[in-house]
């Protein structure tokens, strides 16, 4: 279930973002933000805000931590997702009132908090966080770094993109997906695949975006090229060449007739359950998710590195990540930092949390653990975690979700729907979307 909740969070996180809303009104009333008058106590009870199984996993680290750090007690609270965003925002807007000491924050919220509540999160560089920067998968440090170059969180979960495929279907067509270097290689054999597998599609996408945007695939194609809706400076890149290439790739796949429509919230799972999809371009959490959700397809799925978008292009991308931050208002920031450091920079801690809560670690030094090399029966004995560990070690380009992710996601989704339903030109609709995004947010187009 952790995967489900995380999936919901990281997928269409346009929904339920009440968080910043509350902040807007409260701050407008003049209470402002920042102004955190925390302290650097090294002892006391550290309150940790997280959600679902991630919270349970964190709890597993507490006994060892408390033993190693006498004087500090840790209280991990499962605030729930999406409720946690609401509570963090209200807390930040109130200058840290009632906020936990340690906060679990997703990559789609962190930039918004940093932008809208400067001074709300503690500067972790002051505690020596920079010493750990090279221990995490490449591409994650810029995400936790503020405009001043200081770190405001440590990466915990990282989700490298994978390419799951149905070996049985591709075998039938005499195709070996591990030989795909680019998505064009897949396009080149699309007809052969179709002839051998009538009624089977490669991908399933919610074409009408009802009820929520289904942009995971296009976003990951952008990320494979080191692109996204925004660049690291926060300028709009939604109409960029790379973004257009991403949407065009999807359009060309759709033109082969091999992209099935997956309407509604359950559309994709319905197609998957019926065995109608041959490819699942999904990140690390899916390894366990596919296994538990579609158990009867055991032995049919395999994992390959995702094909590049351009010849010779990158074959690794980190689609999303979550982090632990320390509230600037905390009176015991140093104790809080000690826990964050203990939980996230030690292979033993992150691996125990991976086992307990399915949180794929961002800490690359954790991947030497033998569990990553263990073969998985569901994937025909393939050690899938090893592939993901390698992909994470390769690292991705940093992605800036910015404080306007929800708007960008909606506009990109409208563009994708136009391509699907009206055969629109990807370049035209994306450039139009970029213009609207600029109009709505006041950001400039890069």
């Amino acid at each position: 279930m952790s995967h489900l909740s995380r999936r919901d969070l990281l997928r269409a996180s346009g929904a339920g973002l009440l968080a910043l809303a509350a902040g807007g009104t409260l701050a407008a009333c003049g209470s402002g933000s920042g102004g955190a008058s925390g302290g650097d106590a090294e002892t006391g009870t550290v309150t940790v805000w997280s959600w679902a199984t991630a919270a349970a996993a964190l709890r597993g680290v507490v006994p060892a931590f408390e033993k190693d750090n006498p004087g500090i007690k840790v209280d991990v609270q499962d605030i729930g997702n999406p409720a946690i965003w609401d509570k963090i925002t209200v807390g930040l807007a109130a200058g840290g009132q009632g906020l936990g000491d340690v906060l679990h924050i997703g990559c789609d919220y962190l930039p918004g908090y940093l932008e809208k509540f400067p001074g709300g999160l503690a500067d972790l560089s002051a505690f020596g966080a920079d010493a750990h920067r090279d221990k995490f998968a490449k591409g994650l440090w810029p995400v936790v770094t503020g405009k001043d170059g200081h770190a405001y969180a440590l990466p915990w979960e990282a989700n490298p993109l994978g390419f799951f495929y149905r070996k049985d279907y591709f075998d039938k067509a005499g195709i070996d997906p591990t030989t795909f270097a680019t998505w064009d290689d897949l396009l080149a054999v699309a007809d052969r695949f179709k002839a051998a597998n009538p009624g089977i599609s490669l991908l399933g996408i919610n074409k009408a975006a009802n009820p929520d945007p289904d942009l995971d695939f296009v976003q990951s194609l952008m990320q494979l090229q080191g692109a996204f809706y925004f660049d690291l400076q926060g300028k709009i890149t939604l109409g960029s060449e790379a973004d257009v290439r991403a949407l065009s790739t999807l359009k060309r796949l759709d033109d082969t007739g091999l992209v099935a429509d997956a309407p509604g919230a359950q559309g994709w799972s319905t197609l998957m359950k019926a065995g109608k999809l041959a490819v699942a371009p999904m990140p690390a959490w899916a390894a366990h998710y596919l296994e538990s959700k579609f158990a009867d397809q055991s032995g049919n799925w395999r994992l390959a590195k995702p094909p590049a978008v351009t010849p010779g292009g990158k074959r690794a991308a980190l689609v999303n990540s979550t982090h632990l931050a320390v509230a600037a208002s905390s009176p015991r920031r140093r104790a809080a930092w000690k826990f964050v450091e203990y939980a996230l920079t030690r292979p033993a801690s992150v691996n125990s949390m991976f086992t307990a809560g399915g949180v794929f670690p961002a800490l690359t030094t954790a991947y030497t653990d033998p569990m990553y090399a263990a073969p998985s029966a569901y994937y025909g004995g393939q050690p899938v975690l090893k592939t993901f560990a390698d992909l994470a070690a390769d690292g991705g380009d940093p992605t800036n979700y910015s404080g306007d992710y929800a708007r960008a996601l909606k506009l990109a989704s409208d563009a994708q729907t136009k391509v699907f339903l009206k055969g629109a030109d990807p370049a035209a609709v994306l450039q139009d979307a970029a213009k609207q995004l600029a109009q709505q947010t006041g950001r400039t187009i890069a």
Partner: protein
Amino acid sequence: MTALTTPAAPLAEERAPARRGPRWRRTALPYLLLAPALVTFGVFKAYPIVDSLLLSFTTGNGAAGHADGLANYRRLLDDPLFWTALRNTGEMLVVQVPLMLALALLMAVGINSALVRWRAVWRLGIFMPAVTGLVATGVMFSFLLRTEDGAVNRLLEAVGLPAVDWLGQPFWARMAVVLVLSWHYTGYNAVIYLAGLQSIPRELYEAAMVDGAGPVRRFTAITVPALRPLLLFTVVLSTIGTLQLFDEPYVLTGGGPDNATLTVSMYLYQNGFRYFDFGYASAIAYALTLLVSVLGAVQMRLMGERER
């Protein structure tokens, strides 16, 4: 006139000596009784109304909020999505309101007919949708309207018509919203008409029949004129309701596909609660308010005139 007012004055004076306390206490009592309503209104209605007006002149949120004059309203005029929402709302309004009210009138006449038996059952059946919850409606229709195996498409196929991608195609998605909206509120309007019909004196019909008027003539010459105030009432209310349309597209289409069912209220909601742009959302709210007032006034003018 004087004959009427003179007896009233001494009455008031007679009561005056019987006062039980100072004058302010007597005058305060009604306000005291009204207090719960007034306070609730102040806190939950008046304050948000005023505050959202002020908000509509600000930009940015969180620590970055600041006053920005009419910027939001200028932005509104240049916002293609706002115009899309307005056009969608207008199109649904023009199709849906006349259709629904005509249907409601026919239903009311049908139920009111002396030939109909189990009238209570029909009345209940017609009114039931009006009290159905939003979520139940959404879930039910998303099942009914499923492309592959939905009951509506099965029905269409059974009579030889092609299946329709109700929620996936812009035009049909709009029709789906019209359908659900009509399903939801036709019964409500029918019951209002029914009440009106039952208050029309039977003698009028009898006299018309003696004069040789047929059923159609009786309907147009007696029923419709007698229902005029109610017609006006329902037209104005339905128009306002459809202008503020939110529930149906929210549960059914989420405003999609490609904003085909995006309404002004949905766009307001998105800006406020998905993007936290409260200033802009407030500006949309005030634009909508203006629109509703103008359209309501025009309708009252046009239809109410002959009343005088």
